[in-house]
Structures are given as structure tokens and as C-alpha cells.
């Protein structure tokens, strides 16, 4: 066995906590305190005891465990620990725009005259339909400002909680309380019905190289959805790896949130292994319940460099778990687009809605779709019909004449 554990534990524990924090484990002082208490309770005579006492008190999730093991080995072997794993690349999102914050924040000059407002409004209207990838920097900034006002209400579902209603089951609790208040005189019966709650919204944003022009705007859209708190929202990025970005996105300020997100995403503008990352998502999160009954939105061009069959299998799986599966494709806004590219064609049969996601207007429409308002003329009819392939063939045939998506 290694060296005996020093009798004076606190300084060691504090040093260890510091090393853990440097490695990215959230071992705050209260946890270190718990660690010291645990060491005091156990009769620490083996390194293994110290290991478990620390792991139980200082870690908070499976992601911490690997870091913990690394730091523990290094720390108690007396080797200096070098911060985060060096493989992590930090990428700035829209770096130039972020360097000068508030470019688009300036209100229209002076008092808003009628013409100024009209000009502003029409510029905004024009911006609504422009392809995000084609915008100038100033327009990008304006777009970001507009995106910040977007919240994504989830489709309503019935919940187990009840609320007062005009009819429905008798609300014993309230009825009897009222009777009690009236000194036992029987009064009117009270009723209650299920309280509607918004469904969970799940955003899967493709951040691979082919999405470079859109990823920033789409992530800002995701930020607005998370911040809007209209519905519980979870956001993941897909690329060569899966990253959960709900936490980094939670910051109130959009630019700060975007910086946190870019720091969290290791595979920014990399290749696309949609099938594999979806697989990982479903194994680690989706099947356990995160996707179950949710309205899921995949924001991707469906460009798959990996195995298309794998993508088909995983999208089918996602479609079964979710209440509705929406696919928003930025390229679908281009004239002559047809969803015939390998990955997109494979995924389409399992989506309930397929739509563009290239402009502010299309994102507005997406929000409406997620809220359950979309029963409009969409190539998508029922999922079952699509699974047979009839509608897809029809939709493709209609679009056949145009230029194919490169």
C-alpha cells in the first residue's frame, strides 16, 4: 500500500479539492467539508478508503468519476495535476461579433419618428425571410437581437396535477374545506380537472461543418427557447460528438451563454456523424426518459458522412420515443431543394414535420409547430403514412424539377 494518510487531514483535503476543481469537478467547499467529515468518521488506514470517501462526497455525476480517478492517482502519487484535459479545443462562436457586443443593440436614433419606425419595421420584415447564412455582420447582429425575443412554448399535454374546473371529478379537498368553513353546512360541490402542462421540448442542433453558417443563429434560437421557460427545454449539439448544452445555455445573457456553449462543444464545425451521435444521445439520455413524450426538433441539414443506415435506425428510434419529431433543415429554404440527399432521405419517413430553418420567419414557424399549431399544408401528414413512403415520393416528385441540393 502507499504512504500512510497524514493525521492532519484538512490541508490535504483542501489541496485535493483544489486539484479536482482544476480538473473540472465541481468540488466546492461544502463538498470538501463533507469529505473531511467522512475521513474523520471512517478509520482511514487504506488508500482505498480515502478513494471511496472522496468519490462518494466530492463527485456528483458519472462525468466526474473519470476526472476524479485521474486526479486521485496523480494527487496521491505526488504528481502535479495539469488542469483540464488538453484535448479540449476552445472555439469562439462568431468571434468578431462577440468582441464588440451590442452592435445591434442601439435603438433607432433619437425619438422614434414615423419614418424611422417604418424603416425599422420594414427592415425587420425583410430580415425575417432572408437566409441566415447570407446576412451581413450588421444584419446578423440585428437577427440575434430579434432571436432573443423568441420563446418556445411546448405543446400542451394533460398532467397528473389538478386544478379547479367547472366540471370534472369532485374536488374533495376544496369541497370539504368549504363545508368546514361553513360550520358543517353542505354547500356547492367543487370540481377539478387535470392541469395542462407544456410538453418537454428537445432541441438537437447540428454543429458540424456543413452547418457553419447556421449553427450560431440556431444556438441562439435554442438559447431563447431555454431562457423563455415556456416549456422544459433540453438542448444537445450533434456533430462528431454529442454535447449537452442546456446548462451553458441557461445564462441570461445570450453572448455569455454562447461563449459558454462554444467552450463546451469540442467538435465545433467538424465532420458529421449524425447517426452515431444520435445513437449516443438515445442510449445516454433519450431512452431513459428525456425523449419520451417530448416534442423533439432536429435542426440539421441531414448531411451524413457516416453510415446512412445507422442514421435511419436511430431516427426511427427517436421517432418512436417522442410525441412528435420535427426536422428543421436550413437548406430546405433554398429554391429547388429536395430532401433526396442520403441522410435526409433516410430520416424523413420517421419525421412528423419537415420544414425549413434558414430564416427568422421559418424559425417562428418552427416555434408554432412545436407549440402544436402545425396542422398546415406540410408535406408531412401522419407519421404512419410517411413510413410507407407514399408521401415522401409525392413530395419529392413535386420538387423534382428544381435544382438538387448539392
Amino acid at each position, binding site marked *: 500500500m502507499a504512504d500512510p494518510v497524514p493525521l492532519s487531514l484538512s490541508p490535504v483535503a483542501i489541496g485535493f479539492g483544489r486539484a479536482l476543481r482544476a480538473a473540472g469537478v465541481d468540488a466546492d467547499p461544502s463538498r470538501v467539508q*463533507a469529505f473531511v467529515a467522512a475521513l474523520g468518521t471512517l478509520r482511514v488506514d*487504506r488508500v482505498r478508503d480515502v478513494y*471511496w470517501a472522496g468519490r462518494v*462526497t466530492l*463527485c456528483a455525476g*458519472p462525468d466526474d468519476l473519470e476526472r476524479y480517478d485521474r486526479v486521485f492517482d496523480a494527487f496521491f502519487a505526488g504528481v502535479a495535476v495539469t488542469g483540464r484535459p488538453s484535448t479540449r479545443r476552445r472555439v469562439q462562436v462568431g468571434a468578431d461579433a462577440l468582441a464588440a457586443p451590442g452592435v445591434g443593440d442601439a435603438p433607432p436614433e433619437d425619438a422614434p419618428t414615423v419614418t424611422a419606425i417604418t424603416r425599422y419595421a420594414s427592415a425587420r420584415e425583410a430580415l425575417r425571410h432572408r437566409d441566415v447564412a447570407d446576412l451581413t455582420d450588421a444584419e446578423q447582429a440585428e437577427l440575434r437581437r430579434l432571436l432573443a425575443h423568441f420563446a418556445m412554448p411546448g405543446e400542451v399535454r394533460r398532467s397528473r396535477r389538478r386544478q379547479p374546473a367547472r366540471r370534472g371529478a369532485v374536488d374533495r379537498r376544496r369541497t*370539504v374545506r368549504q363545508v368546514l368553513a361553513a360550520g*358543517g353546512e353542505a354547500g356547492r360541490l367543487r370540481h377539478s380537472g387535470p392541469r395542462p402542462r407544456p410538453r418537454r421540448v428537445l432541441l438537437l442542433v447540428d454543429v458540424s461543418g456543413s452547418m457553419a453558417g447556421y449553427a450560431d443563429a440556431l444556438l441562439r434560437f435554442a438559447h431563447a427557447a431555454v431562457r423563455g421557460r415556456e416549456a422544459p427545454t433540453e438542448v444537445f449539439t450533434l456533430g462528431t460528438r454529442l454535447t449537452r448544452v442546456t446548462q451553458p445555455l441557461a445564462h441570461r445573457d445570450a453572448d455569455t451563454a454562447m461563449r459558454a456553449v462554444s467552450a463546451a462543444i469540442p467538435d465545433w464545425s467538424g465532420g458529421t456523424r449524425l447517426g452515431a451521435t444520435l445513437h449516443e444521445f438515445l442510449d445516454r439520455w433519450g*431512452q*431513459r426518459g428525456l425523449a419520451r413524450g417530448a416534442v423533439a426538433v432536429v435542426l440539421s441539414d441531414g448531411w451524413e458522412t457516416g453510415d446512412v443506415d445507422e442514421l435511419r435506425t436511430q431516427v426511427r428510434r427517436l421517432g418512436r420515443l417522442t410525441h412528435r419529431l420535427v426536422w428543421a433543415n436550413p437548406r430546405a429554404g433554398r429554391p429547388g431543394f429536395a430532401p433526396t440527399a442520403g441522410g435526409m432521405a433516410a430520416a424523413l419517413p420517421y419525421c412528423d414535420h419537415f420544414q425549413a430553418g434558414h430564416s427568422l420567419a421559418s424559425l417562428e414557424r418552427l416555434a408554432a409547430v412545436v407549440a402544436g399549431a402545425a396542422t398546415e399544408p406540410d408535406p408531412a401528414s401522419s407519421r404512419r403514412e410517411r413510413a410507407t413512403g407514399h408521401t415522401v415520393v409525392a413530395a419529392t416528385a413535386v420538387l423534382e424539377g428544381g435544382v438538387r441540393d448539392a
Partner: protein
Amino acid sequence: MNEVGTSRGRPPGEATTFPGGRLPDGVSDPPSLAERLREVGYLADDGLATAAFLALALRRPLLLEGDAGVGKTATASALAQVLDAPLLRLQCYEGIDASQALYDWNFPAQILHLRAAEAAGRRADEDALEAELYDRRFLVARPLLQALETDPVVLLIDEVDRADDEFEALLLEILSEFTVTVPELGTIHATTPPVVVLTSNRTREVHDALKRRCYYHWLDHPSYAREVEIVRTHLPGVGERLAREVVAAVQTLRDQDLLKPPGVAETLDWTAALVALGADHLDADRASATLGSVLKFREDQERARAIDVSSLVARAVADG
């Protein structure tokens, strides 16, 4: 074992007292707790033994995470057996609220009491009558309140990730103070904090504030040797050969990238199914016929069949 720090050691026989809670007789460190857990049929590894020991000694809630079927819930019932305490279980779900988790008033009984008082002609003393209505005997204690009033007790808060944030906030309050305030009655204190085990399947991240209150342990699938031991402990009638072969097959299946890798519970189900068919070893026909007790998805079964069960079994036998 390397005995160090003699000043920290206690003379044998001296009662162990800890600030938080009482330890069961004969339990003074994680290995002795593991031993007691083994006696009630639960095989805990070092990590879980340490986590559970700390939870007992310092009376902090223990948060267990891990894949479905690794024995999170079983930990709580094993602890209850070791403590010889009742196990109170609170199953969380979306929309659970205080009246289902904490307490509720027994309204019909209150009305009855009111009517009885009226029939007895006691209308005059209104204040006293009202006070009687909110007497302790009309309070229906739900699991959380029951746990505070029972000693010793193990409280299992199952699948806490299914409840919503507001409920987590409520839990946080109760698990830090171990008190519940009923406005009409006053505050109810736990004399000794209950042993609390929370489980989560990670369908949602449990709030940091709640995690901070808890010891954390990630339960992994057991090793080959331990799983064989678990099977032999839980199903005493099973032969050594069958146990080894089934466990080897299950461990192979876990590496197969399945939708739902089988947990320990499935291993036990499968073994029990094979025993019911009178098997003393694993063969391709029986394995194929009973696959439904291990793999609960059609895709997984297809994949397992594609692997070719007989080769799987052959490999399993070779490994075992």
C-alpha cells in the same frame, strides 16, 4: 491491511457513537457493514459499503445513480433489513406534490367529528371545536412525514428524477432540516434523522443543491465473479455451472451495444426461468426460448439471435 494512525483507532468493544445517527450493532466501519449486508443477501462492493456506511453514520441522504437493474432500490431494502427498520417508499412521478408526499387532512373524519359535536349539542364552544378539527388524529401522514416520526426507518425516494423541480425544492428543505411544518399543528421534528436513499435514472439532471446535500454513488454492473455470487445467493438452488454460464452470457450481451443492456435483475430472471425449465446448464435451445426474460426489445432479441446463440453460449461456457 496496513494499520496506521493508531491514535485514531478505538479500543475494541467500546460503543461507537457518531454525531448523526446510530449504527446497527457490530457495524463500525464499511467492511463490517458490507458483511451485514451480505448476511441479508446483498453483496456490496467497497464503494457502496463506504457510501452506505457514511450515510448511516452521518445521516446524510445517499443518492444512487446507475443503469436500470443494477440494484439501486435493492440497496435501500437491504439497509432496512440490516437496521431491522421499516422501509418507507416514495415513488416519484411528474406532478407529485406535498399532499401525496408529506401529509393530508382526513376530511371525511373531520366532517364526521363536526357532525358528532353538533349532535351532542356542543355548538357554543366554537374555538375549541375548531382546534379539535385540526388535531393530530385527523392528519394523514404520507411517507416523508412518516419517516420523520419513525425511528429507526429507511426512507426510499425512488426515481427522484421523475419529479419536477418544485418537488425537489420541497425535498431539499426536508432533507436538510428533517422537520416538517404543518400550519395548523406546528413543527414536527425527527428525533434521529432517518436513513434516506434517493435513486435516479438520470432522465433529468438532479438539481445541484439537492446533490450537494447527498453522498453520491454510481452503481456499475457487477463484475463476473460478484454477479455469479449474487445469483448463487439469491437463487440457492442454482448449480454452479448454470450460474457461471448465464452470467458469462449476460456479461457478453452487455458488450453488444443493445438498446437495453440487461441488469442484475434480468440475470436473476433468466436464471430463474432456466431453472423452471429444469436446466442445469445453458444450451442454445433453452437460451433462445427464454431470451425474453433478459432482452425486452425486439431489436435486441434479433441482434442476440443474429449473434447466434449457440456461439454465444459456447463462448460463455469457455469463459465460465
